[in-house]
């Protein structure tokens, strides 16, 4: 009973940790990019400042905005937060992981996207519609690729429960699996697409032709905008954690003892920092691609995950 | 046997009476009255036979068993309902000036004459008389087909006359051969050599070679009247060009009677041959007729013509079923005879009204019946659904059984059957639907329509579809046993 309670407590704490450190990660990425593009870099805590400022401001709302427009940010944030709560960040024994497995995780993302796109169409501006249309197109192409990749992993671990999967991978020890290689690549590409990074989308721009995600939030202001942005950061972090903890779970705490958790925190921080570097490099090297090249990009991701699956079936069925 | 005499004398008297009666209005009523009396007689007869079993009249001239008694009742019944329908209908025709009072006299008297001929054909025990009656049926109706004296109707009548005449002639030749075969066995008392019951009892001794040839001639002969492809060509013409009540009785009854004759013959031949030759021939013709007619349904412009093709289709199906032989198939065929004649005659009644209220038989000019006159529109729709074999109408049940029997004995033939049913359905509906639905063209007006017959018929068909009343089932089973020699299940 007691350890159950601690477990739940820990879950809540970890979720808060997730939400709390997400801006840090994106700040870090921004910083890295500025360095790489040798621009003057903002502070590591700039995102926090932005959020705080936005929360402080009065909401400016379009006349014809409906209740849905005002509810959407909360739903988006809530969904993403729930997703975060289900992902083992620093320790495996996470009771909340049982509430929602990988598929439900995808479901949460879908829920968030659903409301965000709806909200963007609520005002009836051209940009809103355009953003929604592109967003759902990209998402619907990314989803199968992502699920395919996840299947490859879950078939190895024969579970969709994240903590159990990580446990299994850790127990298996260091095994080089070709399927994992492909799955990793495709998951990375999907993550890029889903979190609206270059080359699929460009978070920095507001040019009509280039933006996907940004177009859907044009009409938002103040706390609504803050929630949505924050949710976006958390989402980015979730993907990063997923990739790092699934493919190289070492270091993550196996039981809820202080030292173990401490190690976990450090380990995950290191991993995320590394990933961020990779992402920054990638975003600096690549250029934003035309919208209708994106399907090919995601198609390639799907192909990779498919290959991964086949590798699993063909080469690893003995394992 | 008393009811039998009523059954035959009443219409015969009607022929003379109506021929002399000047007023066609009165004649219409009288026509109904006589038909009603005839129907009553038939019911009485049926009652007798149901209780006392097969009856042989004095002089062996008539023989009533389960097989023909129910056809008698059916014939009389449809005759009655059609008479009811025909009175207002023909009056309207007179008012439109399509026929004059003199021809109405001809019409009414021939109507009774036709009934008489059919009842005679059904009840007689003598194959020769059967032939005579069939020919008489042709002769009485041929003038009615050309009643309107339009070029088309005259042409139709002529074809009807010639083709059926020639066909029937073949049948007579077959009868002669039958007689020849029988007379050599039964020797001296020549009078009995054509009596069906005698023949049936001695079928085994009849000479196969002769009977085979005889059957071919009889098949071609009576088959012409059944409307088997490729002998069917007269049928659509005759059915579409005559006055609608005639079409109703022709499609509903005459074909049945012809088929009845064919089956009687088949029973003899089977008894003598001990091979399935007759059955196979009938199956072949049946299937061919069915499939060809089904395709014809897709090329129609005249509403009555279309439904006469559907008659060919169903006749083909029955012939096929009788050809298969077994108890189940026979039962199915008998049932199908009943439901088909009920449904088809009701359809023709409706079609008659439709043609009157639109003033044309051209399909493309009939639109939106439901709007103009709902009863007619719905009636037509229901009738078509019924004839297309949709449950819970009886046609579905019989077709279901036919398919069932086919699957049992000839599994691969179910495929063409099903295909045919589907195509037939498409053919019927692609034409019927636009007629009942949609927006009526200007100048389409309500008429004084007597939908009672339709209602009764469809109700009966519905009843048969949901459950076969016990006495009827009893009849069917007796008849089945008679024809196929075994009980269904």
């Amino acid at each position, binding site marked *: 009973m007691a350890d159950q309670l601690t477990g739940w407590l820990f879950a809540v704490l970890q979720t808060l940790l997730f939400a709390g450190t997400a801006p840090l990660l994106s700040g870090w990425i921004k910083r890295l990019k500025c360095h790489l593009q040798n621009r003057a870099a903002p502070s590591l805590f700039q995102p926090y400042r932005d959020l705080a400022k936005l929360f402080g401001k*009065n*909401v400016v709302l379009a006349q014809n905005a409906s209740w*849905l427009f005002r509810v959407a940010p*909360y739903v988006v*944030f809530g969904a993403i937060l*729930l997703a975060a709560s289900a992902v083992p960040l620093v320790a495996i024994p996470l009771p909340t992981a*049982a509430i*929602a*497995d990988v*598929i439900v995780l995808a479901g*949460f993302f*879908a829920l968030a996207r*659903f409301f965000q*796109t*709806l909200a963007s*169409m609520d005002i*009836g*501006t051209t940009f809103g*519609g*355009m953003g*929604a249309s592109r967003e*759902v*197109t990209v998402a*619907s192409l990314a*989803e*199968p690729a992502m699920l*395919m990749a996840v299947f490859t992993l879950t*078939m190895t671990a024969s*579970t*969709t*429960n994240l903590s159990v999967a990580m446990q299994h991978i850790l127990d298996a020890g260091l095994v080089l699996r070709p399927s994992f290689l492909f799955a990793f690549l495709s998951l990375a590409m999907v993550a890029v697409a889903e979190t609206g990074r270059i080359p699929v989308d460009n978070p920095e721009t*507001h040019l009509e032709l280039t933006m996907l995600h940004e177009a859907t939030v*044009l009409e938002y202001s103040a*706390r609504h905008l803050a929630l949505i942005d924050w949710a976006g950061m958390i989402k980015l972090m979730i993907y990063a954690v997923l990739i790092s903890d699934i493919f190289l779970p070492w270091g993550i705490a196996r039981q809820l003892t202080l030292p173990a958790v401490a190690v976990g925190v450090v380990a995950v921080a290191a991993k995320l920092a590394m990933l961020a570097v990779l992402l920054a490099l990638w975003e600096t090297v690549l250029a934003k691609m035309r919208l209708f090249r994106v399907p090919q990009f995601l198609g390639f991701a799907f192909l990779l995950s*498919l290959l991964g*699956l086949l590798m699993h079936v063909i080469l690893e069925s003995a394992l | 046997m008393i009811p039998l005499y009523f059954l035959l004398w009443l219409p015969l008297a009607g022929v003379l009476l109506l021929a002399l009666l000047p007023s066609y209005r009165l004649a219409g009523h009288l026509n109904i009255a006589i038909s009603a009396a005839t129907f009553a007689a038939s019911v009485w007869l049926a009652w007798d036979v149901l209780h006392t079993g097969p009856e042989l009249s004095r002089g062996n001239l008539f023989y009533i068993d389960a097989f023909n008694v129910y056809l008698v009742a059916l014939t009389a019944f449809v005759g009655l309902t059609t008479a009811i329908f025909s009175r207002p209908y023909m009056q309207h025709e007179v008012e439109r000036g399509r026929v004059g009072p003199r021809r109405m006299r001809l019409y009414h008297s021939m109507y009774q004459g036709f009934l008489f001929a059919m009842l005679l054909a059904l009840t007689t025990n003598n194959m020769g008389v059967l032939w005579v009656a069939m020919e008489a049926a042709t002769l009485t109706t041929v003038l009615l087909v050309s009643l309107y004296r339009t070029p088309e109707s005259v042409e139709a009548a002529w*074809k009807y006359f010639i083709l059926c005449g020639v066909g029937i002639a*073949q049948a007579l030749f077959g009868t002669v051969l039958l007689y020849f075969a029988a007379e050599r066995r039964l020797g001296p008392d020549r009078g009995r050599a054509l009596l069906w019951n005698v023949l049936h009892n001695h079928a085994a001794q009849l000479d196969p070679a002769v009977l085979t040839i005889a059957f*071919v001639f009889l*098949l071609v002969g009576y088959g012409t009247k059944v409307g088997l492809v*490729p002998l069917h060509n*007269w049928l*659509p013409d005759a059915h579409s060009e005559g006055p609608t009540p005639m079409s109703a009785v022709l499609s509903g009854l005459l074909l049945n009677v012809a088929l009845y004759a064919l089956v009687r013959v088949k029973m003899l031949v089977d008894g003598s041959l001990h091979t399935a030759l007759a059955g196979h021939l009938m199956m072949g013709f049946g299937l061919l007729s069915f499939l060809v007619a089904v*395709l*014809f349904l*897709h090329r129609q412009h005249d509403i009555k013509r279309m439904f006469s093709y559907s008659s060919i289709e169903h006749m083909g199906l029955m012939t096929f079923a009788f050809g298969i032989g077994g108890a189940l198939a026979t039962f199915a065929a008998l049932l199908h005879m009943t439901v088909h004649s009920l449904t088809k005659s009701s359809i023709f009644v409706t079609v008659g009204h439709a043609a009157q209220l639109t003033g044309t038989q051209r399909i493309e000019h009939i639109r939106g019946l439901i709007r103009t006159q709902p009863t007619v529109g719905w009636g037509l729709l229901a009738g078509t659904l019924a004839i297309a074999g949709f*449950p819970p109408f009886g046609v*579905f049940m019989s077709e279901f059984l036919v398919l069932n029997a086919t*699957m049992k004995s000839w*599994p691969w033939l*179910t495929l063409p059957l*099903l295909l045919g049913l*589907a195509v037939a*359905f498409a053919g019927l*509906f692609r034409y019927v639907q636009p007629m009942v*639905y*949609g*927006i009526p063209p200007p100048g389409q007006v309500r008429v004084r329509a007597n939908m009672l017959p339709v209602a009764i018929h469809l109700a009966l068909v519905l009843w048969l579809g*949901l459950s076969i009343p016990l006495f009827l*089932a009893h009849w069917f089973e007796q008849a089945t046993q008679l024809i196929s020699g075994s009980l269904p299940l």
Partner: protein
Amino acid sequence: MLLAYGAIGAALLSGVTALAADRFPAVLRWISFTLLGLCGLGAVAAGGMVLLTGERMTAQLPCGLPWLNWHLRLDPLSGFFMAIIGIAVIAVSLYGPGYALEFQRPVRMPGTGRDDSREHFRPSLAALGLFTGVFVAGMLAVLLADDAFVFMISWELMSVSSYLLVAYQHQHPANRHAAFLYLLQAHVGALVILLAFGVLAGFGGGFTFHAMRTAHLTPAWSSLAFALALFGFGMKAGMVPLHAWLPEAHPAAPSHISALMSGVMIKVAIYGLIRFAFDLLGQLQWSWGLATLTAGTATALLGVLYALAQNDIKRLLAYSSVENVGIIFMGLGLSMIFVATGHPAIGVVALLAALYHSLNHAVFKTLLFLGVGAVVYRTHERDLDHLGGLIRRMPATALFVLIGCLSIAALPPFNGFASEWLTLQAALQVPVLASGVLRSIIPIAAALLALTSALAAATFVKVYGVAFLGQARTRRVAHAREVGLGMQAAMAMLALLCLALGVVPTAVIRLLEPVTQDLLRLRPAAATVRGWLWLTPVSPRVASYSAPLVVAAMVLTLLAGYLLMHWRRPGVRRVPPWDCGFGGLTTRMQYTSTAFTQPVRRVFAPVWHTDERIEKHEVAPARIAGLRYQLHIGDWSWTALYEPIGRAVLAAARRVGRIQAGNIRLYLAYSFFTLLLLLWLIS
């Protein structure tokens, strides 16, 4: 059993009472629909009872053939589907009285002159009520049937009555065409089903289902029977490429009928397939499963893609029914595969998923059709590109439809998600299979399922965004009013069900236990092993989903967030939309549904027969005064399948027509040569 009889009786009675409706419209609105409601309650009660007790009841009616009475039987499977029908019928009976007003006011006939007296006509309420009653009765009777004969009769009864309902507004040629196509396909399907039953009966020696169960078929024959059944029932269920009738017919009917057809009638077809494959045929083969799975996948994907491309909102819903049927078929296929390869435990999960999704689809599709019906009822507008902004005009309807959209888009915590989650879980258990082929095909199918649900989400973002959000695009829409309480109540009920079924999947699975027990001799033991809170289809270790906790957490976060934001009320300023500062926003600048789907159309171009025309009206070189854009999205199954068949039949007819040349001598020659031929044959 009595309850079931009662339900059917009530349905028929409501039909009969409706006959008086032409004279007294009130009869239809109050008596008939009340009876219909009773029928629904009866059905739910009967089904629920059977599901709770898990018993079977059989009966015989002294109808039909002298030697083949009507055999009836009510077992958990039929009970479950009966409950589904019941729910939908209750909703419709609540909805009907309000909606029927639509048909009391006379309608203008298209194409008739102004001063024409026939310009206006009133559709016959009697017909509407009568056929509705018969339709419902027919569906219920199909579930009760225990021999092929009753089954076929009630099946065709269902088809015919629904056909008459499709043709109800027959002043529009399109509806007539749809009705014809529908009835034709229904009939063909029925004939094929009949053939399938015939094969079984041939071996079983009887048309009672009991005899068929005992039949011993060779694998080849049983495969044939299954193929026939798949074809026949698939045609009714709208399996690609036999689906062509569905998007034509469902929109043509009055909305509450469309709801019944899309919501439950195709479920009856699914019931038929389950009954045939799992119950009558018995010995399943994995090849069937593979066939069903493939068909299902194709159906789901194509269905949703076509749905996405539609602008007519009812057509769109119809196509999305095709999609959902595909998902259900996938479940069934998986179940067959797993059962046939000796993993019944997982087979049960898949079957559960299929059944569960049938229930869910019935609920949310009915809800959506009713909602759309409400919209059409107020705006008389079915084209998405003419709607807009309804969330402000019809708030209640908007809310309910939103819930419907969330459910059909398979978003947690609503019911659509639960069943698709189960399907995916079943698909994920492939490692147990021996055959590598299956192990690689099934995950692909699963991925395509994911694609399907993502596209479904896109579709309903479009529907909701274009129809309910943004600004009204036409005057009539701008002045739409909220619908009456009855209609709202119907939608509210279904919306609640959507949520409830999504939140407590365990309860549903408990209810379904007797069904699987009946069909596969196995209960989904693992699924509820950790109590009502946790749904663990295979085992807690493998996967678990706790909808109640999800909901709880979500509510908590929302509350927390809301309080956090509003503990001190910062003001809200209402201003004109910013729109990147362009300003001068008009309703015509909004993204239309056509525009919304353009990227997807471009990505999946080969799927459609797209006919896109842009007419430029150029006043001077390079000065375009006006553009005219029109787009027609065609279904390839037409050109690929239906038109050729039609042509073939007509060609054959033309050939045969030649023999009826009209010349009497020719006819004589026919009979002459027939005679000679026969004589030659016999001698």
